[in-house]
């Protein structure tokens, strides 16, 4: 083949603003997303610590509470409404600006183009726009704290009528809730732009030889996640517009007739709050997979790399990802068993929900099969990938309980659900992000993270999250309701309060441990040992180029791919791994 025409998607910018602020380089945008998520996760974690504090010390006066929130914490004691606003903002910020942002938009943006051998995303300008739109959404969301009445109270699911009738239903339900909806609508737009880029890039920008069935599983999960985001966020956007109109234009999409709120009869008539629930969860359930699928991809990549074995059942993994993505759109009703839906519908949703257990079990089985007999290298990244498998199984098993309508009726409004979704959607996904960070940091920044601090960080975090979230299941079985600001007035809760105290201390501990991670991250940026091109002896394309990669990734050269993504311990090969681009590594 004659040397291919070198065609740059765009030229390297020279100004500071072009390079680091309004950059069109997918790598810079990926890092921007990562740090946006890092800011958000610290904010969301702080909110959760305030909640945990309030739950065990509901009557304690705190001087600086009053200074910070003169109305919501008058006299230094948090009002129940303030607790609900913390809960709403914790959930919203974590789900949208952390779980949706870092695994997909952060790591995906940085590594999808490199792993498939492209110079950049298909639409670099759209990519930049997508980041700054997400940034705007975050600014609008955080602004909800600072408007009159404060942040909204209606939870991350924003169920009407509470979210639809305005200030009379609570302090944060005025401007705060309006800003919430506007922020989410902006976020939907940003996610749609991102999804278009991910799908077009995966389909059209793969290097020669990089067939779909040779893509790293990370790319498969980013691709399927983009499809889920595309369909999910389009529906959420539509629902958000209708909710905004109910609030601001006096329409009655979701607000029923004859509603009395705070002793006032409302003018709305004929709307259906259930309609919102259907639209919301049609987005909301795929959203769970948007959060977790990229973590599955990273876990697969890492288990294979650090077991020095090909991934067990590569094709089965892809079919499982596709099946999870497809079934994810058919199970939204299992969030609504309590809504009075027909038992026949509930049965159908329940069966479909159980069906998702099959591809999930295939994945878990294949991960264990990958580890089986491997020469395992226990790096920090690998530990977090193993932690992901553990949390995925733990969180997944409680999902089987909740997928039964008869059991869900009991569990639905208890801490069992809080324990379940934090395990699987929250912590498992965050372990995926940690795994990705420890694995890709050398490539992104050209330096290694400290392994000793990393391992301490892993062990303490692993213990910490189990200490926080395992007891929630028992509390739920004991009947502890969720979304309550204070349990001290319920006699049956007295015996459970020590468990809450334990969980609160576990939360302080786990949060403190994250300072180790932050220290390691920022210290290693400056002082970490220099990274080689391929410190983990991995096979995928990002490890064929310098750390950090040059502006156009492959230095004007177009990689050609000869192998699948996980050729470890190939018999007859010179080393125990064969790079995807290695033309002559296998002799037959």
């Amino acid at each position, binding site marked *: 083949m004659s040397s291919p025409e070198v065609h740059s998607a765009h030229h390297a910018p020279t100004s500071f603003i072009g390079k680091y602020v309004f950059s069109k380089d997918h790598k810079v945008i990926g890092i921007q997303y990562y740090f946006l998520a890092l800011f958000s996760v610290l904010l969301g974690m702080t909110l959760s610590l305030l909640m945990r504090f309030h739950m065990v010390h509901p009557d304690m006066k705190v001087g600086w509470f009053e200074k910070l929130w003169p109305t919501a914490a008058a006299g230094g004691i948090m009002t129940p409404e303030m607790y609900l606003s913390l809960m709403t903002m914790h959930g919203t910020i974590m789900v949208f600006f952390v779980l949706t942002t870092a695994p997909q938009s952060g790591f995906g943006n940085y590594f999808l183009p490199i792993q498939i051998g492209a110079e950049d995303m298909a639409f670099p300008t759209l990519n930049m726009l997508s980041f700054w739109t997400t940034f705007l959404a975050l600014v609008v969301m955080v602004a909800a704290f600072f408007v009159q009445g404060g942040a909204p109270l209606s939870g991350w699911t924003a169920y009407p009528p509470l979210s639809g009738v305005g200030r009379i239903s609570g302090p944060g339900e005025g401007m705060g809730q309006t800003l919430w909806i506007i922020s989410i609508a902006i976020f939907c737009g940003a996610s749609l732009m991102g999804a278009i880029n991910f799908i077009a890039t995966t389909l059209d920008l793969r290097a020669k*030889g990089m067939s779909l069935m040779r893509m790293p599983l990370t790319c498969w999960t980013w691709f399927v996640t983009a499809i889920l985001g595309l369909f999910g966020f389009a529906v959420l956007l539509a629902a958000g517009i209708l909710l905004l109109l109910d609030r601001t*234009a006096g329409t009655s999409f979701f607000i029923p007739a004859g509603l009395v709120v705070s002793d006032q009869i409302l003018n709305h008539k004929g709307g259906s709050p259930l309609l919102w629930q259907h639209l919301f969860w049609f987005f909301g359930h795929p959203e769970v997979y948007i959060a977790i699928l990229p973590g599955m991809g990273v876990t697969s990549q890492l288990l294979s790399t650090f077991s020095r074995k090909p991934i067990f059942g590569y094709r089965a993994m892809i079919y499982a990802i596709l099946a999870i993505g497809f079934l994810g759109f058919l199970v939204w009703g299992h969030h609504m068993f309590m809504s009075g839906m027909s038992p026949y519908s509930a049965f159908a949703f329940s069966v479909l929900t159980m069906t998702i257990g099959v591809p999930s079990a295939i994945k878990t089985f294949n991960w264990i099969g990958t580890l089986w007999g491997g020469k395992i290298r226990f790096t920090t990244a690998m530990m977090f990938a193993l932690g992901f498998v553990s949390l995925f199984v733990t969180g997944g098993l409680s999902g089987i309980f909740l997928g039964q309508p008869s059991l869900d009726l009991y569990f639905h409004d208890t801490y069992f659900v809080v324990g379940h979704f934090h395990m699987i959607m929250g912590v498992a996904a965050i372990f995926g992000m940690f795994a990705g960070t420890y694995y890709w940091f050398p490539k992104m920044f050209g330096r290694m993270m400290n392994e000793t601090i990393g391992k301490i960080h892993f062990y303490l975090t692993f213990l910490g999250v189990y200490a926080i979230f395992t007891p929630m299941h028992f509390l739920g079985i004991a009947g502890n309701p969720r979304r309550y600001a204070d349990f001290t007035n319920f006699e049956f809760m007295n015996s459970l309060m020590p468990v809450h105290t334990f969980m609160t201390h576990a939360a302080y501990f786990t949060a403190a441990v994250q300072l180790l991670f932050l220290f390691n991250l920022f210290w290693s940026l400056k002082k970490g040992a220099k990274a080689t091109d391929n410190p983990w002896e991995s096979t995928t394309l990002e490890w064929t180029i310098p750390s950090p990669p040059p502006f156009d990734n492959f230095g004007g050269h177009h990689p050609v791919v000869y192998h699948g993504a996980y050729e470890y311990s190939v018999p007859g090969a010179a080393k125990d791994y064969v790079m995807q681009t290695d033309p*002559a590594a296998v002799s037959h």
Partner: protein
Amino acid sequence: MPGSLAKDAVKGPPLPPDAGDFGGGGPGGRGTSRRASLTGMVVLLAAITMMFAALTSAYVVRRGMSNDWNALPLPHVLFANTAVLVASSAALELARRRLKSGRRGEFNRYWTAGTVLGMLFLLGQAYAWHELKEAGIFVATNPSSSFFYVFTAAHGIHLLGGVVALIWVSVQALRLQLGPGKRTVVEVSALYWHFLDGLWVYLMVLFLFWG
């Protein structure tokens, strides 16, 4: 054939027998960017379809479950608007074909006509809103009017984006800067426009038969 040359190049070195297909695309170049643009547009249309599907399902549910639904008296100008939009799509299609056969002058005329018809449609939609307003039908008057305003506004905003694209192409064409490289823009914006045309016809059917 360039394709087979490229295949030979990667076939040369020894490969494991289960190497699989070489389905990967080529790097860089105009072909890639053209293909990616078309893919991107199709994906965008899928998202828009999903959004209108969500609104439609809300419409069907809200209409079916309530006893407060009054059929909306459709402004007659909507029929004229529909005809204008279909004509605009046809003009763009004629323009696209003229460009393919290299008749640039005719392309300019048809494309500009399509653009003007598109703007006329938007004016017509604004007039339909005006008529409803004169009849005292506002967004909160009845769920049927709420949905009508939502649907027409959502469609109109998307169409406005389309008009901007059409005008951009028109300006390029009239300044004689529409080289072969820009034909992707023509294809992609025409595809978008035809889709919005079809979407409007669908919405008219929805209003007429389930209004």
